[in-house]
């Protein structure tokens, strides 16, 4: 007995020692790596004509946009290889590559979702190349600038907008006695009233929601320019009036029986493709999925997003959207010039982007182009793209901070309790405490 005990003890000691040695090694490596990186940067900066690689997701949307940009780019020395990766995969690869400290295998250009951008920029300060000199940030929608910059330096070139709208079925709303004007510039409280009316008169649910996806809360909250965190990154859940009001609206929606629940993306699409729900409050990118059901052509229109019933709230919000970043490695100048020459300044390119890819950029001058004036038959000849580009400029700016998704994981568990009757003050206070413990 005693013998086995001593044996185990020694084993444990060896294991501990190994851990300590390993930890010490990795600590030492960090220092040396910084030196190595800067060497690489100096020796090869300004290397034009080198092969540029870009990582992005979705062949029909982001990658399509990159390919289009390449067609519009007038530089014969410029070669770019576009590599398709799922968004989660890009996050994983970037995190591994950047935290290992070697910039080996990293791309020149990478697409990052706006809500994740700050965590990359802040965690890996030297890994990204500031590209503010290659385009004019003031040409872009204001709300895009905070998430894509850090310490006054512009790192990201804003790409697509997630400007939201209230897509609705004209036939259902008419049946319930509502016109387009009744839906313009309304509050969420008014929206819920209309929802109940629609449900009563037509039998259709007003919208479809996934209880695990709090996107709708973010959309509501951003109409007032607030977020889970403030500009300094301090978590502000408790005493966050807009969030409180958004939660109350959310509960009111759930309780009034106007929501058709879904559990995943395909069911969400199914809800409006099959004609079950009367409205879809979502980012403009959902238009493509709505238009996929051709038999419903002419039955849809878009109104501005409802706002929270507070002073200073705008009838404009955002859901999703990403931007291009350049990594601080060989070829960074060429990559930045390419982005600046296409996404950063080319109005014609943005016209093709709308017609061919269906992507609305955040470059403000583009909205005067012809393609933006297109009257979409599917949406009752509404100038959908133009209207979205106008709403886009009104989106209140928020700082997404580093932990949007982390906080939301905590919040979504609390929300279930809120729906079951827990008081709103307790829900907010508990979320605040948990979030502070986890992210400080």
């Amino acid at each position, binding site marked *: 007995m005693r013998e086995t005990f001593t044996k185990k003890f020694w084993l444990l000691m060896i294991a501990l020692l190994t851990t300590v040695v390993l930890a010490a090694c990795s600590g030492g490596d960090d220092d040396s790596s910084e030196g190595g990186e800067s060497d690489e940067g100096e020796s090869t900066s300004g290397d034009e004509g080198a092969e540029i690689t870009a990582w992005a997701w979705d062949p029909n949307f982001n990658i399509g946009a990159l390919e289009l940009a390449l067609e519009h780019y007038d530089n014969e020395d410029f070669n770019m290889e576009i590599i398709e990766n799922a968004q989660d995969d890009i996050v994983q690869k970037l995190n591994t590559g950047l935290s290992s400290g070697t910039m*080996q295998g990293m791309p020149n250009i990478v697409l990052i979702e706006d809500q994740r951008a700050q965590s990359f920029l802040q965690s890996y300060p030297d890994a990204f190349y500031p590209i503010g000199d290659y385009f004019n940030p003031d040409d872009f929608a204001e709300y895009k600038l905070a998430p894509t910059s850090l310490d006054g330096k512009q790192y990201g070139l804003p790409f697509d907008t997630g400007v939201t709208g209230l897509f609705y079925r004209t036939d259902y709303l008419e049946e319930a006695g509502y016109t387009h004007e009744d839906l313009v510039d309304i509050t969420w409280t008014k929206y819920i009233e209309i929802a109940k009316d629609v449900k009563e008169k037509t039998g259709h649910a007003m919208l479809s929601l996934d209880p695990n996806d709090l996107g709708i809360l973010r959309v509501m909250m951003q109409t007032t320019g607030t977020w889970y965190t403030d500009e300094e990154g301090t978590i502000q859940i408790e005493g966050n009036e807009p969030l409180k009001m958004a939660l109350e609206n959310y509960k009111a929606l759930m309780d009034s029986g106007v929501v058709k629940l879904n559990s995943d993306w395909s069911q969400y699409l199914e809800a409006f493709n099959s004609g079950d729900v009367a409205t879809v409050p979502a980012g403009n990118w959902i238009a493509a999925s709505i238009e996929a059901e051709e038999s419903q052509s002419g039955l849809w229109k878009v109104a501005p997003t409802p706002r929270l019933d507070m002073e200073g709230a705008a009838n404009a919000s955002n859901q999703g959207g990403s931007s291009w970043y350049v990594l601080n490695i060989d070829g960074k100048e060429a990559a930045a010039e390419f982005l600046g020459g296409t996404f950063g300044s080319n109005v014609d390119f943005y016209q093709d982007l709308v017609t061919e890819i269906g992507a609305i950029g955040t470059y403000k001058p583009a909205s005067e182009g012809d393609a933006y004036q297109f009257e979409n038959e599917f949406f009752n000849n509404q100038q959908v793209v133009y209207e979205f580009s106008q709403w886009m400029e009104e989106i209140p700016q928020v700082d997404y901070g580093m932990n949007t998704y982390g906080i939301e994981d905590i919040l979504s568990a609390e929300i279930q309790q809120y729906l079951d009757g827990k008081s709103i003050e307790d829900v907010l206070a508990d979320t605040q405490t948990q979030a502070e413990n986890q992210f400080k």
Partner: protein
Amino acid sequence: MKKFKRVFIYLFLSTAAIVSIFPFLWMLVSMTNKSVDVTAGRLIPGTHLIENFRNLLEQTQIGLAIWNSLVIAVITTFLTLLIGSLAGYGFEIYRSKMKDVVFNILILSMMIPFAAIMIPLYRLFGQISNDAPLIGLDTLAAAFLPTIITAFFIFFFRQNTKMFARELVEAGRIDGLSELGIFFRIYLPTMKTTYAAAAIIAFMNSWNNYLWPLVVLQSPEKQTIPLLISNLGAGYTPDYGVIMLAIVIATLPTAIVFFLMQRHFVAGMMGSVKG
């Protein structure tokens, strides 16, 4: 009473069977349907198999991905078995004071999750990329090298070697065989079932390996099957019919390997438990 018990058992087993088989059935049916039908939950085989197949070939380089996965899996399996069995054999047959301590440390290494060593490993491969580009980042070799030496297989072979008659080693020595000769001419042929079981596990692990190849392989030509499937599902409007077809194709090789060696697999696993 006995009859009642029997009915209950059958009921339970049938439910369990349906629950585990249904996803496969759904996968097989879905690969013949349009994406819209898949999301609508259609359970009847459709007529879109050929169209899905054409789309799959058009959108992806699935042939290349299968080839990459196959190259990696075959080499991994071969090297894992060779190294694992040599080490397991050595641990069991040769006498040494420290061998149990070393072995225990080895077993301890199984407790470290791969995610914890991934970043140092990436760094390592990043640094050798300049000096040895053949095994650096973005090569198939980099995708399998870290996986060929695993404590699990050394443990597995050591346990099974306990059943191997030590007298055979003595006999071999007396007849003048070299130590390696004993291993390759006596041990290897008698332990066939163990090798078969290990081969299946190693092949499946490698075939389904996702995280490390994802991180280390960058160019599209090096993509393996799990990465390709992940990409297919990543768009804003995924085509579920095509995805299901790709998954079926990805499942086939492991199924074939398993059925070919099933008999040995069971025997081999039994052996490791008995030992």
